């Protein structure tokens, strides 16, 4: 972690890793999609729609992983002032938000044949919606503050506050849900899933995780370069101003 504090070293590492990781993502996604679309049997109750799960569940996991990453990076920003922590958190937010959005859309598409409606105030869907809103708040805060240093620290504080609140929100939404809907129409516990569905699910989860890491590394590289360009432009303007004076 300490040796990566040097952005140049980090960039050269990213340049070396990205081609390999891209190959891994392509292979895993190919195998995972083949397994989930052609090998996995249709569910005896849900038919072919069960295959939405292979996109929906990994996307939901990664949206939570994304927020965990932001919370850890927030500690990095506030406690160790690690120069890349702020970049990591800033670039993880849109990726995590996109995965949360994918989970919401696929959940609602899955809900149409299962529940007969696109949206049900199910505890998991509701928690995911609130997680998505937390992501939007983080992204909006980053965009509202011009100075990158202040934006990074403010977003780190908000990220930690959100991380403390997520378990409480999850608990309250579960409570609210049992209060209003005594039984869930549809539940997915780990052990009730058949192994024939579990293997493609894990391959897809691995593929999505690799995709997340790949996108995150590329976004971090872009953000570091963007900041360098910005700094260069600023010095150019200052030089021009000095020359005129």
């Amino acid at each position, binding site marked *: 972690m300490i040796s990566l504090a040097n952005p140049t070293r980090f960039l050269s590492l990213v340049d070396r890793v990205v081609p390999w990781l891209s190959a891994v993502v392509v292979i895993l996604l190919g195998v995972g999609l083949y397994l989930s679309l052609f090998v996995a049997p249709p569910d005896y109750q849900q038919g072919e729609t069960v295959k939405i799960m292979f996109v929906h569940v990994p996307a939901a996991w990664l949206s939570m992983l994304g927020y965990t990453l932001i919370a850890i990076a927030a500690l990095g920003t*506030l406690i160790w002032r690690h120069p890349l922590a702020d970049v990591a958190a800033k670039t993880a937010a849109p990726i995590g938000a996109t995965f949360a959005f994918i989970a919401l859309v696929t959940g609602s598409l899955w809900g149409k044949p299962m529940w007969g409606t696109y949206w049900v105030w199910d505890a998991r869907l509701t928690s995911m919606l*609130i997680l998505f*809103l*937390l992501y*939007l*708040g983080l992204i*909006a*805060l980053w965009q*509202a*503050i011009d100075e990158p*240093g*202040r934006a990074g*620290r*403010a977003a780190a*504080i*908000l990220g*930690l*506050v*959100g991380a*403390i*609140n997520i378990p*409480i*929100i999850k*608990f*309250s*939404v579960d*409570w*609210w849900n049992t*209060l209003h809907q005594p039984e869930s129409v549809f539940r997915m516990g780990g052990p009730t899933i058949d192994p024939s569905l579990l293997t493609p699910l894990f391959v897809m989860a691995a593929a999505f995780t690799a995709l997340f890491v790949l996108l995150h590394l590329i976004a971090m590289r872009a953000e570091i370069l963007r900041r360098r360009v910005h700094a260069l432009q600023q010095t150019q303007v200052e030089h021009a101003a000095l020359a005129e004076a």
Partner: protein
Amino acid sequence: MSTVRALLVRDIKLAWREGGAVGVALGFYLIVVAITPLGLGPDLNLLARIAPGILWVGLLLAALLSAGRIFENDYEDGTLDVLATGPVPLPVVAGVKCLAHWLSTGIPLVVLAPVLGLLLNLPMGAFPSLVLAMLAGTPAVSFIAGIGASLTLGLRRSGLLLALLVIPLYVPILIFGVSAVTPYVSGPNSVWPPFLILCALSLASVVLAPIAAAAALRTALR
């Protein structure tokens, strides 16, 4: 201690004397509750059933509307810089200002809530639990709003951003606040668990929120 008390009294006085700061929040609460039946129709049974939810949502929005004020004026005229370098630690300053918001805005909103409950045909038996639940929950509302207010200090369109940042954090307060009132309206559930959870949420935010708010204030003052 006397410094803290002076700061608290000053903030409450400012909130009340500053042109209509508290009045606007109360008026906003009234109008949110008043337009809801216009949208839903005048069915009194329906209104009685959803009254706790409307009263809580309206209260959260009205409290948010006035939350930007917690630090804004002191930030603009430089008082906050003086307070930050003064003898009182910044988390205490932040906590006192949130407390002043609760006393000056939160409590009047809670006092108004039962009156608005009459408009929504809230059953009489629910009034004590409504007021108790709101008294237990509104400190958390003010203190969490304080985090949002300190994060958005001095930004453009900070009011809208404040709402986007803070409303997701209000979800537990809303859920337990409504559950603490609903049993009187619709079911035999006990009101104690949600009421105690509301107290816990308030106590936790009174302790933790000033620390986060102070950290955010430092980033804004730098």
